Each structure stands twice: as C-alpha cells, then as structure tokens.
C-alpha cells in the first residue's frame, strides 16, 4: 500500500485521459478501474480517490469493488506478470511442479512481487488452454506443455 510519493502525484493528469472516455456513471466503475490499472499498473490511493470523485461516490465504494475483484491490485506490480495455472487439468498433469519451480526460481510466493519489481507471481484457476496443460501465462501470452525446466528457461529469458 505504500506507493512512492512521485507515483501518487503523477496520477491525476494521466487519469484525465481515461475519464474522458466515460460519462461518469456508477455502472462504469469496473471498466474505469480496469482502464486506470492498465495505465498505471495498479490502483494507488490517489487514483481511487480520483475515480470516486469522478463518479460522485464515496471512496469506500471504490475500495469495496477494487478489493472484491481479483484482477485489481492496490500495490505496484512487477514488470512481468507470471500466472501459473492451477486448474484441474493442469493440476492432474503436474501444474504444482510448475508452480514450485517458478516459486523457487523467483523466490516469491503467489500474490507477491519480487523486490526489483521485475516479476509478479499469481496463481490462476484456469486460463482456458487446458488441452495444453500444464500452462503458464506470461504477460497475457499462454505457454503450453510446460515442464519445470521450460518454465525456468522462460523466466531466465525475461531477465
């Protein structure tokens, strides 16, 4: 939750571009938060406040929604988002071993970001490419038929 001051100050101007695309109505809250996060990478407190003001709702409402949905992050994320699928088909085909390999390679747990902010690691329930399980998703690109070795190699190539 402790975003550097500079990032918090930088937000309002960037948000104007997002707000211009909306009318400022309550049902737009989730798409707005999605757009804000795609601009800033996460939802810092200043952005939450700005969205609340734009929609004329209490900040608690925005926080309520932002913390309910798994995709929203209130802390800065790594440059690369690593998602390891733990869906049933991936599970029965060794998904846990992929997660173990990634976890030890990056030295973080699911839900965490490396200190250098290179990587964030997430555990996802299904990425829909089950036929190629086990699957790992790096920045929205799905990599199928993973092995621990292949997973480690992919991460090394990103460094």
């Amino acid at each position, binding site marked *: 939750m402790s975003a550097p001051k500079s990032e918090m100050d930088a937000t309002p101007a960037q948000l104007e571009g997002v707000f211009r695309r909306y009318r400022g109505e309550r049902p737009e809250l989730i798409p707005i938060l999605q757009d804000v996060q795609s601009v800033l990478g996460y939802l810092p407190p200043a952005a939450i406040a700005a969205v609340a003001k734009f929609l004329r709702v209490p900040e608690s409402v925005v926080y309520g929604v932002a913390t309910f949905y*798994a995709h*929203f992050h209130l802390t800065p994320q790594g440059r690369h988002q690593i998602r390891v699928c733990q869906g*049933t088909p991936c599970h*029965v085909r060794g998904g846990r071993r992929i997660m173990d390999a990634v976890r030890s390679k990056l030295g973080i747990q699911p839900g965490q970001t490396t200190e250098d902010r290179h990587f964030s690691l997430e555990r996802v*329930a299904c990425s*829909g490419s089950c036929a190629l399980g086990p699957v790992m998703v790096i920045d929205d690109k799905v990599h199928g038929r993973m092995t621990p070795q292949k997973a480690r190699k992919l991460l090394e190539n990103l460094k």
Partner: protein
Amino acid sequence: MTFQETKEKAESIWRDFADHGKRRVLVGGGSCGRAAGAHELMRVIRIFLQESAVPIAVHEVGCLGLCYAEPLVELSAPGMPRVVYRDVTAENVLDLLRDFFVHGRAGRDNAMAVMDGPATDGIPAFAELPMLKGQVRVALRNAGLIDPENIHHYVARSGYAGLAKALELSPDQVIEEVRKSGLRGRGGAGFPTGAKWEFCRRSPGGEKYVICNADEGDPGAFMDRAVLESDPQSVLEGMLIAAYAIGARNGYVYVKAEIPLAIERLEKAIAQAEELGLLGDDIMGKGFSFHLHIRKGAGVFVCGEETALLASIEGKRGMPRSRPPFPAQSGLFGKPTNINNVETLANVPVILERGGESYARYGTEQSRGTKTFSLAGNIVRTGLIEVPMGISLREIVFDIGGGIPGGKRIKAVQTGGPSGGCIPDRLLDVPVDYEKLTEAGTIMGSGGMVVMDEDTCMVDIARYFLEFTQSESCGKCSPCRLGTRQMLRILNDITSGRGKPGDLELLQEIGSAVRQGSLCGLGQAAPNPVLSTIRYFRDEYEAHIGEKRCPATACRRMAGVRARGRFSRPGADHDGAGGAGRGRTAPALQPGGP
C-alpha cells in the same frame, strides 16, 4: 445494402477463400494453437511466402478442436489434396511448405488428414479421424473452417439466415421454434431456453436486456472460449434472435478477462456486424434495433452466477442475491433480463434457420441436441468436441478421446467442474443427459471433462475442489463461507494423515447443510465433488483415515506418517504426474491484490 446483397458479396468472398485453384495456408490460431506456438509459426510462414515466386495466401482460422495435435497447419494448392498437418513447428514448417508448394508433393510426415476428400496416399480423411467420428457439430459448425475475423465467411456459410428468418416471424413464433428444439441452457443448469425467453417476454416493462454469459469459469472448461475465438458471429446472431424474441434493444456480453483473444475477436465481430447493418438500428430494414456492449470480468468465479453477474455489470461487488425475483422479472438495473450462455446462443441461429425439429432429432427424450465438451487431463486426445446427447462417457473418453496415455488405467471422469462430481470407471456407460448425469451424482455442467488416471488420488481431488470453492466463496452467506472452510479443514487433515473416524460422516453432514443452506449455485454445488467421491471412492478415504495410507501414492504429506518404499519415490507428488516432486505447500487460490 439489403441482406440479399450482403449475402451475395459474402458468397463471392468465400468462393475466393475456398477456391481450389489457389494456393493457401491456414494456421489454427485459437489460444490453444497460439500457446502451442502458432504465432511463431505464422512469422516463419510469412517469410517463406514473401520469398515465394507464386502468390500464396495465409489466414489464421479458429480451433478445429484437435488441441492435442496443435499447432495445425492446412495447405492447399491446385491439383493437390487439401492436407492438415499436425505438430508443425518453426523447424519443420519450411520443409512442409517447400515440398507442398515448390515440389508439388504432400509430405506424409506429420500429415494428419485430408480436409476435403477421401483418404489419399495413406493420409486419412478428416471426417474419418477417430476424434471426429461420432461428432455432430452445430455450435462448432464453423470452428476452424472460417476466418473468425471475417464476417463474410460467416454470412456465406448460412450466417444471419436464422436472424433473417426470425425477423419474418412474430416473437412468439420464434420462441415456439426454440421450444420445439428442446434446447436447454448449456451453461450447466439446463433450464429450457424457450421457457426462459417466454418468461422474460411476458414480464411487464418497456426496457429489457439480453446478456451473454461468457464468464466461463470452471477449471478445465474452454468450450465458450473456443466458440468466441472461432466463430464470434454465431453468438452475436443468437443474441439478436433472443433480443427480438423477448423485446430487448440493448445487450451485454460479460466475458472473462483471462481470454483476451476472444475479447479481441468479439470486438471486431461487433464492429463488422454494425458496418453491415446486422447490428444497430433498423436491422435488415425491419425496424428492429439492438445495441451490444462488452463488459470484461475481473477474475471472480462467482460472477458466472447470474445475479452476481448482474451486480458486476452494474458496477458493484459481484455477489449473488436470493431469487425470486428472477432476472427475467427484475434483472439488470431492475429491468427484465434474459441471460444465456455462449454455447446456448451459438445454437440458436441454426435452430431458427433449419427449424426446431431438426435440432431435436439429436439427443435423448429430455436432453435434445448436441453438447460441446472440452477433453482435458489424463487423456490421449485432448481438445474440443461436440457430440449428440445420449452418447456414453465411455465412448467419449475411449473412442473420441483415445483413452488414457502411458498405458495407465482410467479411474474417473470429472464433469461439471467444482460444481460437479466424479464418475468412476464402472459407471462410464452412463449417457450424456442432464437427468442421467445428475442421478449418477454429478452434473452436465458447462462441458469441462477432466479424465483422471489411476495415479490420481480422489481424496486429493475433492480437497483440491474444496480449496477452490472455499477461496472463491464470496462470503455473503454463512453456510457457504463457513461450511466450505470446515470441509476443507477436514480434507486437509485426511490428506495429511490426521484423519479421524467419523470424519466422513461429518463431511456428509456439513455437505448436506451447505447444499441446502447456501444462497447461490456456488455454495449449493460446492459439496458435490466431496459427496460424489465419498460415494464412489469410500475405500480411498478409509485408507487415508484408517491406515494413514494414500492408495494412489499421491498425498505426499502421508509419506512421513507411514513411510513405505514406494511412497518415497521421487515424483509421487500431489499432481500425480510423476517427475521431481518437491515439498508440498498449498497456498489458497489467491484473490490477488494485497
């Protein structure tokens, strides 16, 4: 442009695309194909084509459903059979292309099937492939055959003919046609679609909504993703027909954000349909108007439940509410709302075009038509299939899916995701039918089918699903919030050698309370994986509790309790897939964020 003119233009574009006199490369480019490397492949192919002396067209198409063989590439040239190749890589593709286009020889390595004719040179005909035999493709009629980003391809293959027909009928007649088809909700619950539409049509109110539920959330289910990626127009046309039938002018597609390619293709499909006057105001000049919006989910499983989905579109926390009032009475923004699943909607245009009775010819008395399934897990031919209802699970797993890899024995088939159950080997002759599957202790579900071999521990699978539902419980009602947590605790104990006599009875008791007391389908169905595995695999539970032993040697935390030779074999990890197992830690599925 009238629809007739649109059709003629589309047909000429399609003739050009499908022309046998032309050289053409098709690459299977669904998410599966891309995950297997189709993207890199496209790059290499493009370089080859640029250097080619003769013009060769290249197109990305959707998913043929043969995911196990991805990436797939289809080649055609004048005087040559149209051949689809499997397991094509950046390394072997150049040889294939050179043989085919330069030497006029259809290479046999990696050749999978002849797409448009009989077997040639020992390469089997596509329809004769074991995975294709026995399939009837309605919802998947265009998948892998057309360019999903080209509306003309869809129109040329009878697309929007169903809508044209519907607009000639009264809304009541349209509903009657859907009723005659016997179509039931393909999202899993199986409510008759015609009755659902009628309910919404009869609800008083000037403003109504149609929503497509594309928040496919069951782990192991990818039918809707494949339909959206391979044939998005079929879903739009289904929504248009539904909107006309119930009297809606606005609609939403609520699609999960994890499938960006499907969203991208859906956006393009909407823009193209608007451009041709098939979406928007005064459609086909019949005075009917319909506007469509996309809403992306944000990673919450329960938002697939229809009242939670509505809350999410309204910009709220996606928590379910009690029914009645049903969405058909008071749905989105308090207006009557009809919500259908992707596959349900993809079937609708065909039902209108060919008549409800033609669809009802397939299937069983209570379960008409066809159903798509995604085959995954320990099965030889993973992929996407569509079969007539009434086919047995055994036929699906062994005839279509090719059985179990590695000479292993099958243990169970899991259907219905976290809301379903596991069917044991001995009951695999059960037909695919809503009622018969429910009797067997599982549900039809949306179509995820995960096959499990003998190395899978059924107690671990039950624990795995409870871990999922427990973390995805929204917390609004206590039976689900607290009940799933208690059940998970007991299952964690059992799988780590701390099970006690009486645990099974306690699981059944809590399970029954959760089933009866929960507010929505997530909680009501959450005990299913546990109850069905206790019903069919009680001996495995008893071995864990009484003998502190995991018969499948999958539960690693048991090993320390009673170490026997084979327990310590490396790779006997919880995932049952062999390989170098590590210490087992099981963080709950993270809701993300702090």
